[in-house]
């Protein structure tokens, strides 16, 4: 499966515009890492349940009441661009 590893395509999925130099470097470095982690296939995992979390996960409910949290002004304070109480982004609709 290692030979299918394609940094260029994966970077697109991850929304990362990499340079040619980075693509080449990561291709070689991460192929090594993938080769290392492929050792895991030697382990017999027949009938083993996967662990996503080490603690029991259960739903946490609370009353459906409004609580004070950040004001719109506070939420916008770190925005690279804002106007009229909104985040401003580059045009995304043609």
């Amino acid at each position, binding site marked *: *499966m290692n030979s*299918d*590893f394609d*940094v260029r395509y*994966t*970077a697109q*999925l*991850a*929304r*990362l*515009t*990499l*340079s040619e130099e*980075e693509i080449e470097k*990561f291709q070689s*470095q*991460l192929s*090594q*890492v*993938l080769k*290392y*982690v492929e*050792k*895991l*296939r030697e*382990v017999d*995992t027949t009938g*083993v*349940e*996967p*662990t*996503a*979390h*080490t*603690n029991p*996960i259960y739903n*946490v409910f*609370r009353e459906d009441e409004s609580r004070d949290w*950040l004001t719109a002004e*506070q*939420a916008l*304070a*770190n*925005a*690279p*661009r804002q106007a009229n109480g909104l*985040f401003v*982004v*580059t*045009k*995304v609709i043609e």
Partner: protein
Amino acid sequence: METLEHRIAEVDPLVRGYLSRDFDSALELAKKADVSLPLGGVPVAIKDVINVLGEPCTCASKILAGYRAPYDATVITKLRAAGAIPYGRTNMDEFAMGSSTENSSFHATRNPWDTTRIPGGSSGGSAAVVAADEAFAALGSDTGGSIRQPAALCGVVGLKPTYGRVSRFGLVAFASSLDQIGPFTKTVRDSGLLLNVISGRDPRDSTSLDNPVPDYTAKLGQDLKGVKIGMPREYFIEGLDPGVDHAVRAAIRQYESLGAEIVEISLPHTDHAVGVYYIIATAEASANLARFDGVRYGHRAANTTGLLDHYGRTRAEGFGQEVKRRIILGTYVLSSGYYDAYYLTAQKVRTLIRNDFTTAFEKVDAIVCPTTAEPAFKIGERSNDPLKMYLADIFTIATNLAGICGMSIPCGFANVGDRKFPIGLQLLGKPFDEANLLKIAHAYEQSTPWHKQRPQLP
């Protein structure tokens, strides 16, 4: 506050453990401090991954340059309620990804015992400032060893609590099923005092559990009669530095002389922990770091021509090399067609690693082993070899995968030429059994001289 700031001004140009400090605000808090509280008036340094209202929280990343936290993390709320003063933001590997603090986008932190060497990571700044007497205590975060490994290499006490013991609300997430916040201190007692304050269920973190919070200092000073400590044979491997091997074996003999019974145990899946970790941690990170999109906060690329260009360039400009590498790896192992082969397999082997500990803890109360295979390495030595860097965490990673608690305490020095470098003794405990872990750590600490040693700095 003035004495502390004077010390920082004197030493930090060499150590470079801090990213920023707000002296005036801290001084105001100090003037009003209620010294009758458990941590009344005590300044505590905070890793730059934990939100403190109004202060920067860069995660040592350019993508968060200029960001100011709009709220306090729960651990900060709890510290303030106990009278402590959050003071100073400590350096780290960008987004806690690394084992040397060389991956900071701002500058590397240096080991106070030898400023040509790394302090460990990712919480290297927190470990270094405590070791260099630039802080009384500090908070860090531990995803695969990021508290225990730098604590070992800097010669201080570092504790990773059980997963769910401490709220993660306000901690910038790296790998959500592994991350825990914990203290760096000079003594085991201080570690217990901080844990008393930061522990407990938080309605804002659904993974924090409501197990009772005991007084973590209550058992300190009790003897070790009847205590069984496991020595895992898989942690005493070839390649272990002779100085580390010697110090840890001497510590184990010391435990025997203190009345503990040493039992040889096996954790058969140890060898697979690093592989499992670099699949699970990068997978979770690739999802968590998707939020850095240049819309609501942080860096934004200029003159973008559409949505994909906006995301792609913002993230490429903002993230450093190691973060990009891990996002790519994590995205790949989760991607269609590879999920079962990598991610699902890793989750299954994680179960086996966890079972190893469950089985071991049926026989023993705690486990003792080295924290790291070697003392601190030189700055720059491993920067170009990610796999070798990943193996620096070989002894600490399984703890997070199993969700148990662990700590590192000083257990001696390795001599290299005319310099000496601290060695860490790692103690691992059952889930939510920090009180006994601290008792076992304290008995050793109080019977040895290591915690009183300080690096020679001006």
